[in-house]
């Protein structure tokens, strides 16, 4: 610590801190245009100059570190004169456009001109005109307004790691440009909008909000993004019931100001013309829908469901809720299934993504949740990223991974068959054959145990079953592992040594681990890796699933699963069953219910007669959708609650229009177990209702009174019934929310699980053999098909495809194929090809790329025109029944 005087006030600061930081400590305001705490100082704008006693000239306070005894003046006459002159110089080359500029009111230049009373500039007779360029999706440019602070260049380099902007030319001609002045779409831009968010003037702005309103006219509403499990904090700017733009608060976790393209520009779908705004009903699915009023629709649903319950029993009903929905809605959905219908046939769309995480982590550690927070990623020394194309599926989490590597020197081990973007940052890339995760991880375990790199103390004190594990992995020598996985044995040995050699090793994984026949096993294997090296229970360690949808964690926590109530309290535990039966005032069924895929089988077998599907589109996103659709068509009654006419809604008898996440109060729980408030920003469209209201209406009409005035009352009920949520209420959730478990009203939350003991007592080392995938390539279908996400879209595309800005960037699917196969098949990028599996066939354009592993092709499932899931397979996770989206066999031909 050094001591200095700023404007006569004494302040202590670290020697590495700048004068600006020290002044901020004192609450002294120094104007800046090019400074951002996230970026390395550049000292470009000269607004922050201060006078330092004894210095030869004024210094840039943002780039000058403090020293002991320094005497600084931030408001001396020479400082003020310099700043005024500086403003004049900037103004001399800036359009005098404040009257019509969208930035007016939050423009930093305007603010400082006011502050320093600079009315015009001596250096120009006429200001240049505004030069608007709205040819790019999302991002509006006006390079004449640019003051060359370089923040956009630096944030794109340092935070987003995309390197799109650069200073071009020199002198008066200097401007900010993409390489060769290409349009953003062709420059590699990922439209995260970081550059827009830091622009101090009107040079970069959000295109969709242009000319729609000024900052003082908008109401700012804080909420949570619903496009992935990172759960970024959003700030919605709302005027007259319309969202004008989305920004992010730089102080708010987990994203601290960062957003991806979906978070920033994916907000227009709610006003799409084809939004459902009236209940639709029909007697038979061959008939067209007719509009009905709510009363008629609700009473029809109630009558039909009661009829089916009476006729076929409660287990002829199944309910699917949504990981896009709030905790409160998921809680009510399972309460409806259990208390009103009397069945545990309750599931949610986590079944098709992270159900194996819940199964696997519960078996290993006792809790099916991420062990650490997302912020921990940045401080890890070694990161294993397995089966996660983080850059595209969880872009903001990927920024943390890249920061750990680029700025903090972490070593990155990427386990992925595809050459995903993170491979560029990897120390070791284990490019395994799809579906051989367990074998590969056994190989890593083998090396660690054989070389004695395990944490013996931790294993003895905190785990069980090490002897069996040793026996099983003994056979997975590097040679054998190489044979199964195709990963060179040297890399296996290297990766094992790197991970075992750190006390800050963190595992982050995605659906590449779970969506396999051995998905749960894969998760348990990763847990083995963390357990034998003792990398659990401390900061920057642990095993952390990146959840696909925004509330996968929450929908599971809320008991929207066939065997548990909230927070995994078992339905067949008599004490728990009694607790819930008493609370809900009815005898609840104790037999665990059907998992989602079982529901379709039961429907095919005419045993399941009715389904209630909330905000979920299995007819597009389940595997082998032809089967799923034919099962749905056999139902006597299907109710779907949706925003749009999805593939599933098209098969319904009743479609009930609901609100989207901008229109809701409630809570989401992100991948790090952070429960966070969603705040309603805009009114529900006329004719729609909240999901929770609809459930209550149906339940009440069926004779089970369900009434809440506000979702907060639902959360209060959840807190009463759930020890881990006991301390949670809406009031406490304001701000950045709480990380469960929150044991009582004073408990601060639990960012790190399993600190001293595992939820299940001892950590279980599960001894697992490698199980090959269900359907492997053969002569007829020689290629692996792997499916996954793309950056620009979300799930079935029902929301993301309806955002004009995003649609302008990405509007069609393409199958990724390796040049080797492409050459053999005579396929070039842009060709239309036919992809066929044993279950279905589709046509799609090809992209020839080395991103694909030789022998594998890749498709996303976002585009209705390319229904990828007609192809996907028969395999499913042995324990959780999650479809094996990552492996099935296909052939590709030129169409």
């Amino acid at each position: 610590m050094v001591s200095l005087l700023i404007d006569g006030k004494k302040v202590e600061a670290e020697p590495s801190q700048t004068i600006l930081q020290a002044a901020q400590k004192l609450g002294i305001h120094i104007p800046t245009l090019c400074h951002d705490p996230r970026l390395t100082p550049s000292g470009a704008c000269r607004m922050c100059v201060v006078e330092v006693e004894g210095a030869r000239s004024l210094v840039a306070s943002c780039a000058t570190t403090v020293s002991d005894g320094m005497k600084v003046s931030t408001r001396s006459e020479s400082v003020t004169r310099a700043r005024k002159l500086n403003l004049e110089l900037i103004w001399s080359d800036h359009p005098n456009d404040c009257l019509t500029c969208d930035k007016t009111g939050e423009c930093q230049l305007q603010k400082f001109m006011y502050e320093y009373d600079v009315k015009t500039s001596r250096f120009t007779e006429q200001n240049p005109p505004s030069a608007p360029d709205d040819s790019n999706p999302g991002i509006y440019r006006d390079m004449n307004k640019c003051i060359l602070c370089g923040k956009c260049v630096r944030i794109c380099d340092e935070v987003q790691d995309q390197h799109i902007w650069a200073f071009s030319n020199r002198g008066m001609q200097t401007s900010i440009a993409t390489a060769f002045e290409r349009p953003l779409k062709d420059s590699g831009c990922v439209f995260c909008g970081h550059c827009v968010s830091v622009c101090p003037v009107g040079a970069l702005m959000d295109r969709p909000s242009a000319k729609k309103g000024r900052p003082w006219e908008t109401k700012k509403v804080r909420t949570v993004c619903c496009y992935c499990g990172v759960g970024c904090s959003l700030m919605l700017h709302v005027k007259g019931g319309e969202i004008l733009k989305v920004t992010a608060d730089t102080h708010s976790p987990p994203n601290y100001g960062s957003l991806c393209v979906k978070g920033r520009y994916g907000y227009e779908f709610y006003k799409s013309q084809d939004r459902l705004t009236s209940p639709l009903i029909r007697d038979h699915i061959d008939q067209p829908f007719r509009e009905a009023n709510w009363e008629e629709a609700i009473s029809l649903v109630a009558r039909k469901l009661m009829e089916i319950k009476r006729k076929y029993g409660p287990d002829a009903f199944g309910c699917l809720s949504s990981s896009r929905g709030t905790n409160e809605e998921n809680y009510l959905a399972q309460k409806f299934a259990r208390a009103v219908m009397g069945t545990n046939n309750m599931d949610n769309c986590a079944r098709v993504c992270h159900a194996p995480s819940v199964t696997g982590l519960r078996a290993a550690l006792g809790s099916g949740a991420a062990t650490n927070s997302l912020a921990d990623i940045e401080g890890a020394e070694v990161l294993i990223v397995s089966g996660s194309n983080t850059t595209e599926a969880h872009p903001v989490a990927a920024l943390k991974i890249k920061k750990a590597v680029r700025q903090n020197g972490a070593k990155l081990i990427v386990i992925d068959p595809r050459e995903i973007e993170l491979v560029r940052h990897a120390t070791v890339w284990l490019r395994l054959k799809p579906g051989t995760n367990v074998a590969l991880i056994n190989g890593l375990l083998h090396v660690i145990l054989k070389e004695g790199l395990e944490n013996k103390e931790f294993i003895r004190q905190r785990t069980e079953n090490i002897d069996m594990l040793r026996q099983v992995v003994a056979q997975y020598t590097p040679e054998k592992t190489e044979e199964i996985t195709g990963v060179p044995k040297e890399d296996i040995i290297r990766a094992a040594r790197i991970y075992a050699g750190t006390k800050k090793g963190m595992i982050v994984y995605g659906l590449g681990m779970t969506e396999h026949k051995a998905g749960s096993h894969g998760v348990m294997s990763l847990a083995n890796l963390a357990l034998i090296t003792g990398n659990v229970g401390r900061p920057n360690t642990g095993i952390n699933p990146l959840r696909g949808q925004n509330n996968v964690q929450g929908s599971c926590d809320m008991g929207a699963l066939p065997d548990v109530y909230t927070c995994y309290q078992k339905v067949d535990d008599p004490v728990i069953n009694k607790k819930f039966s008493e609370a809900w005032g009815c005898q609840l069924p104790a037999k665990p219910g059907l998992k989602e895929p079982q529901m379709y089988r039961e429907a095919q077998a005419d045993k399941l007669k009715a389904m209630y599907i909330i905000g979920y589109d299995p007819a597009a996103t389940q595997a082998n959708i032809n089967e799923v659709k034919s099962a749905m068509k056999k139902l006597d009654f299907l109710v779907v609650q949706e925003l749009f006419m999805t593939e599933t809604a098209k098969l319904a008898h009743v479609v009930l229009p609901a609100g989207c996440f901008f229109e809701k109060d409630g809570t989401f729980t992100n991948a790090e177990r952070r429960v966070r408030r969603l705040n309603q920003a805009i009114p529900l469209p006329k004719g729609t209702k909240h999901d929770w209201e609809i459930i209550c209406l149906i339940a009440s009409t069926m004779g089970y009174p369900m009434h809440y005035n506000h979702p907060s009352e639902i959360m209060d009920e959840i807190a009463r019934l759930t020890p881990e949520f006991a301390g949670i209420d809406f009031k406490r959730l304001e701000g950045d929310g709480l990380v469960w478990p929150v044991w009582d009203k004073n408990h601060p939350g639990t960012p790190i699980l399993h600190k001293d003991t595992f939820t299940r007592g001892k950590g279980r080392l599960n001894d697992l053999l490698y199980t090959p995938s269900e359907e492997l390539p053969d002569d007829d279908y020689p290629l692996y098909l792997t499916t996954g996400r793309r950056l620009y879209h979300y799930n079935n595309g029902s929301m993301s495809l309806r955002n004009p800005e995003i649609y302008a960037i990405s509007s069609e699917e393409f199958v990724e194929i390796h040049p080797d196969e492409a050459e053999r098949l005579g396929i070039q990028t842009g060709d239309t090809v036919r992809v066929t599996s044993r279950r279905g066939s589709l046509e799609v354009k090809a992209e020839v790329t080395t991103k694909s592993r030789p022998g594998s092709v890749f498709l996303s499932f976002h585009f209705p025109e390319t229904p990828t899931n007609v192809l996907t397979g028969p395999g499913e996770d042995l324990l959780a029944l999650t479809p094996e989206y990552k492996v099935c066999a296909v052939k590709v031909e030129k169409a």
Partner: protein
Amino acid sequence: MNKKMQKNQESPDIELQKLEDYIDKFHTKFDNSDIIPILQFVQDIYGYLPCDALEFVSKKTHIPLSRIYGISTFYAHFSFVPRGKYTIKVCIGTACHVRGAEKVNAKLEELLNIKNGETTADYKFTLESVGCVGTCALGPIVVVGTSKKSEACCGGPLKSGRNVSLGDKFHGQVTPENIEEIINKYQGETDE
């Protein structure tokens, strides 16, 4: 996406082998200080900075294309368009200016039938102006340089930015009257 596809389909119209060999001789971990020597090499072998070559450099070195572009545009030495075999640089520094550089320039524009900054249709000459070249006593100065230099001239891979001017020839005390003779000398030289 579509644009990218088209790009990939194009057969590269420039030969990249020499460039690849050159970059391979560098090192494996590139940083910003490597950009200028590489750009000089590119301009030397192609006579300008072809877009495809810069993309290739970016891919090979992992230096962002935007940064390469920014640096390329910063220095007047680099050009994105093919240049003439000879670059005629008319000094318009203060001393040359007062001694009639403008008239020399005008005469050159007339002789070559191009504007300053342009290249003749036969890619023989590029005409441009420069600031002071530091030999004011001899002004007006015209410097004629071969933009496309031979290996012999460079002496192998470039080591610093200084040998850029190795192929330059200075002509002092140029007048609108004697400039034609000077140009004709280059005009008459046949391609090797």
